[in-house]
């Protein structure tokens, strides 16, 4: 190392620990007249003092590695081809995409979520929300069309691609006047309000999410996506760690503080967007551009009055973001003539409206987007606005900030108490004028019910042990909703909102697979929603929305009562849905969504009819369904979701045909179903779901073949499934087919493997009834195969199976497992029969086997008889009672 370098470092090392005069003196002394060296040391010391947090934290950041996977252009994502990248943001990249099958020219925006967004949870939430998001059908909302995961598990969303510019850019480029800007924001408000009525909160409203098309139509992007991507409160934390989900400039104080976003948060963000549109700057003047500075400003400082903000902006070189010298721009851009004129325009109403929307406390803002929009409208019409400026006393007192209670997951039980607190707050306001009180209360209750249902419930639903809290939330939400329902009649928008909320309660209670399992409660809530929607429908039967929502609810009700075994009510709801939808489909045949909704109704009706023993009706519904779907022009029919639906209908038609003992018909339908699914799986190899449903179709086809004793064909299909997925189930089916083909020696290894896998699953979760059933089934089949081989361990396997079944407690009304055991006993009877029929067996032993066979058959008969008496047997299963009874008689006779 050069001597000079060594001197440099030595002087630096000695001097850096000192300060001021002392340091200067030391550097001078040690440099010993070498001016160049001294200057260099001084430069380094100065750099040291200035370096601040330079390299203070390690180099790696979340983003650095997250973007390693890249370069999608030209590649396929799901059934979409990426054309080019449109942009990149905190949560991933947005691409321009088109359908890979070239079915449509339509250009789409595909948002690929980068790694680190916790793909599985994102997807789970997406699936949960998708129905709701896809149902948002509003001219000012960009439609969400599809979503899925890439082969390596990155979630993506496909949306309508909007060609437009962010609202602020658009307004400035077109030099829109203040009034024109207000009109523009009113359209945005209409979209947000529509979404709120569907109980979807945007959570990330900002100019970049509001694109205005060339035709001047604003479109909101990414509705509800923020929630799908990021459930839970720690939004700012994630922002800091590099995943910028929230744009703090537009986020409400509650979001910045990590609390939950509600409809009031959207009101706030709309306020910020309008503020910027009018003044050209942000409502706050943060100390710096760092996220933390902005966040601090948002939660602790008051926004400038818009009218004075124009002034500040005039000389603001430190104005945040891109806008320096804004006032002049503003004046020019809005055609206001002069700063003073613009100020006058903003002073008064607009100051009050914006400051009301921007209040820190959500409950002090406008109670809804409609109210916010209403005031803007009143201002434009020259009417007095409803918002009132804050009083001096209020302003003076508000900075003594309350202690915020963070919403830690562990403290969730406290959530249920929130309800009570709010209730007390209403009572405190009892003294006010009746009118004000009613409105206020209504808004509060509405917000509370929504918060309970959406934010709080969603936040806790995956937590272990949250069920009691969820139940409490549902109960509370219901009592608020019931209160609202009695108070508020007349306003259709509110009625619709109420219905939507009841429906949501029903989903939470039991309509959803992940619900609380309270199907009775679900029926009650759905019924309330139905009542409201029926009233709306009676009031205006021409509104297609009323029809669609009524149909959707009837379907939900039909499904849940079906699960409760009430077939006739289910059928009634299904017919109701059908009656609502048929005219809609006839009126707009090109609307695939609607067509698929009607398909779902026919499908439900077909399945319910079959279960009710009305085979001819069932077939009729499925045939009608096929006509509905297959009659479409080739381009529409080529859509995967339509093809998938058709394959489902063929499957259900096959069920009905099998029931009518039309085995060739069933076989043909099964083949159709399989062909459709195999084509989908071949076309979209990256979509595992298609392969999965193809496997299911293969299985069903094989079972029809099995019933027709065409075991060799069945075996081929089972083997194909086994090759795709070596699961216990496929091992079992392969073994079963081999045994029926008289090849028990080949069957045994498959059955042993199935038993092994099922036993492992059962051991891992011994409470799981289904694994228990599977183990019993494997054992019975294995003992049949061993018996056929005359293997010495056959008897022991059979005995073990009997003991295993006897150790399994099943409720007498639990039809499925009992029916399953009915089948297992029958199979065991056959196995003992086989053992008894062996030539080598001694007479005493033969008698023991025959006795055992008879007992097994009798147990089977007992189960079927009891299930039939309890009306728990579907017509499909009645023939099994006959078969078991005949076998029992035969065994008795042989004795």
């Amino acid at each position, binding site marked *: 190392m050069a001597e000079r370098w060594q001197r440099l470092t030595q002087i630096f090392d000695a001097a850096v620990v000192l300060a001021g005069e002392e340091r200067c003196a030391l550097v001078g002394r040690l440099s010993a007249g070498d001016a160049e060296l001294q200057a260099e040391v001084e430069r380094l010391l100065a750099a040291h003092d200035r370096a601040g947090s330079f*390299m203070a934290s*390690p*180099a*790696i950041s979340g983003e*650095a590695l997250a*973007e*390693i996977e890249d370069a999608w252009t030209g590649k396929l994502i799901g059934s979409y081809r990426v054309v080019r990248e449109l942009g990149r943001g905190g949560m991933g990249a947005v691409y321009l995409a088109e359908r890979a099958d070239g079915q449509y020219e339509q250009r789409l925006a595909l948002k690929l979520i980068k790694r680190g967004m916790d793909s599985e949870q994102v997807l789970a939430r997406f699936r949960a929300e998708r129905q709701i998001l896809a149902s948002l059908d509003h001219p000012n909302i960009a439609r969400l069309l599809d979503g899925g995961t890439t082969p390596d598990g990155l979630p993506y969303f496909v949306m309508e691609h909007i060609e437009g510019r962010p609202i602020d850019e658009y307004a400035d480029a077109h030099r829109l006047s203040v009034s024109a800007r207000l009109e523009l924001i009113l359209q945005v408000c209409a979209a947000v309000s529509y979404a709120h009525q569907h109980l979807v909160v945007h959570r990330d409203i900002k100019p970049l999410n509001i694109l205005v098309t060339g035709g001047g139509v604003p479109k909101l992007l990414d509705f509800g996506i923020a929630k799908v991507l*990021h459930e839970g409160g720690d939004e700012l934390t994630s922002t800091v*760690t*590099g995943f910028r989900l929230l744009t703090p400039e537009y986020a409400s104080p509650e979001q910045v503080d990590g609390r939950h976003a509600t409809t009031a948060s959207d009101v706030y963000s709309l306020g910020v967007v309008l503020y910027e549109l009018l003044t050209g700057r942000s409502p706050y003047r943060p100390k710096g551009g760092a996220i933390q500075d902005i966040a601090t400003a948002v939660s602790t400082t008051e926004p400038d009055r818009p009218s004075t903000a124009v002034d500040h902006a005039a000389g603001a070189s430190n104005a945040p973001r891109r806008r320096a010298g804004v006032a002049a721009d503003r004046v020019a851009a809005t055609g206001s003539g002069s700063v003073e004129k613009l100020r006058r325009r903003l002073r008064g109403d607009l100051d009050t409206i914006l400051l009301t929307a921007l209040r820190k406390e959500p409950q002090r803002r406008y109670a809804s987007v409609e109210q916010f929009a209403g005031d803007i409208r009143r201002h434009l019409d020259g009417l007095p606005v409803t918002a009132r400026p804050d009083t001096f006393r209020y302003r003076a007192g508000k900075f003594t900030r309350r202690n915020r209670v963070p919403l830690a997951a562990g403290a969730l039980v406290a959530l249920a108490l929130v309800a009570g607190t709010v209730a007390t707050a209403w009572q405190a306001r009892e003294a006010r004028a009746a009118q004000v009180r009613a409105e206020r209360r209504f808004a509060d209750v509405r917000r509370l019910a929504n918060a309970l249902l959406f934010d709080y419930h969603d936040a806790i639903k995956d937590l272990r042990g949250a069920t009691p809290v969820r139940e409490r939330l549902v109960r509370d939400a219901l009592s608020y909703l019931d209160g609202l329902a009695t108070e508020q009649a007349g306003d259709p928008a509110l009625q619709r909102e109420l219905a939507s909320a009841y429906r949501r309660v029903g989903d939470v209670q039991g309509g959803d697979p992940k619900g609380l399992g309270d199907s009775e409660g679900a029926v009650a809530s759905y019924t309330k929603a139905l009542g409201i929607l029926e009233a709306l429908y009676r009031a205006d039967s021409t509104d297609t929305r009323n029809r669609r929502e009524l149909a959707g609810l009837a379907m939900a009700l039909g499904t849940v009562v079906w699960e409760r075994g009430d077939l006739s009510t289910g059928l009634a709801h299904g017919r109701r849905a059908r009656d609502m939808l048929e005219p809609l489909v006839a009126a707009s045949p090109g609307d695939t969504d609607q067509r698929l909704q009607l398909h779902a109704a026919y499908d439900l009706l077909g399945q319910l009819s079959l279960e009710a023993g009305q085979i001819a009706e069932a077939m009729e519904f499925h045939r009608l369904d096929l006509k509905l779907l297959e009659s479409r022009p080739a381009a529409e029919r080529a859509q995967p979701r339509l093809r998938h639906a058709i394959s489902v209908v063929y499957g259900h038609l096959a069920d009905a045909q099998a029931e009518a003992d039309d085995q060739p018909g069933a076989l043909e339908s099964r083949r159709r179903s399989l062909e459709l699914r195999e084509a989908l799986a071949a076309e979209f190899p990256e979509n595992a779901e298609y392969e999965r449903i193809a496997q299911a179709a293969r299985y069903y086809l094989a079972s029809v073949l099995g019933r027709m004793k065409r075991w060799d064909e069945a075996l081929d299909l089972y083997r194909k499934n086994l090759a795709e997925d070596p699961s216990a189930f496929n091992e079992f089916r392969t073994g079963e087919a081999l045994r029926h083909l008289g090849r028990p020696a080949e069957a045994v290894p498959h059955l042993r493997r199935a038993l092994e896998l099922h036993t492992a699953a059962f051991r891992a979760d011994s409470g799981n009834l289904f694994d228990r059933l599977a183990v019993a089934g494997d054992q019975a089949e294995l003992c049949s195969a061993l018996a056929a081989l005359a293997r010495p361990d056959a008897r022991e396997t059979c005995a073990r199976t009997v003991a295993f079944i006897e150790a399994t407690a099943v409720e007498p009304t639990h039809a499925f497992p009992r029916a399953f055991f009915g089948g297992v006993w029958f199979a065991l009877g056959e196995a003992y029969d086989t053992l008894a029929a062996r030539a080598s067996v001694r007479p005493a032993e033969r008698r023991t086997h025959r006795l055992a066979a008879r007992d097994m058959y009798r147990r089977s008969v007992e189960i079927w008889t009891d299930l039939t008496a309890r009306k728990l047997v579907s017509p499909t299963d009645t023939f099994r009672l006959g078969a078991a009874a005949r076998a029992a008689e035969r065994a008795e006779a042989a004795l």
Partner: protein
Amino acid sequence: MADQPQSAPDGVTQLLIAWSNGDKAALDRMLPLVYEELRRLAAHYLSREREGHTLQPTALVHEAYLRLTDQRKADWKNRAQFLGLAAGMMRRILLNHARDRVAKKRGGGAEQVSLSLVESPSGRPDVELIALEDGLERLAALDPRKGRVVELKFFGGLTTEEIAEVLEVSAATVERDWTFARAWLYEMIEGGEAGQ
């Protein structure tokens, strides 16, 4: 289970031992393994970040070490070597990536660096990393140990004590080297922009 580490690619321990015994070829065979593992771990950590994990390079390289080596055979000295090695890999991963992105964004070539970007809240600007890399190479040419200290601390996320172990010097020396190197790099990057 799917996301459990694959069994340690056998040989990393052997390679480490061979390398520390002076077998230079062992390093070449080991690097791709380490590199892949780090990338995989980085992705793995990223996917857990929302559960409150901050992506710490230290955690990454330590975990990579645990996964890649059989601890019963690898002694402490190997571990220190490994950490040093991994820090270098991290540096390379980040730099390559930054260069790719800059090239893609700007159509080639790095650009002048402004240190105001250093405080950018979301991630570290690519251009800064690239400028830093240039500086670091120059620093390492003048004073290899200081270069190593920066690499280990900034890219590897190692603590002062760990760096001392790797470099076999005292913790105080590491601290001094770091203070100097940081000032020197800052001066070089910022001074280069303002001065000459």
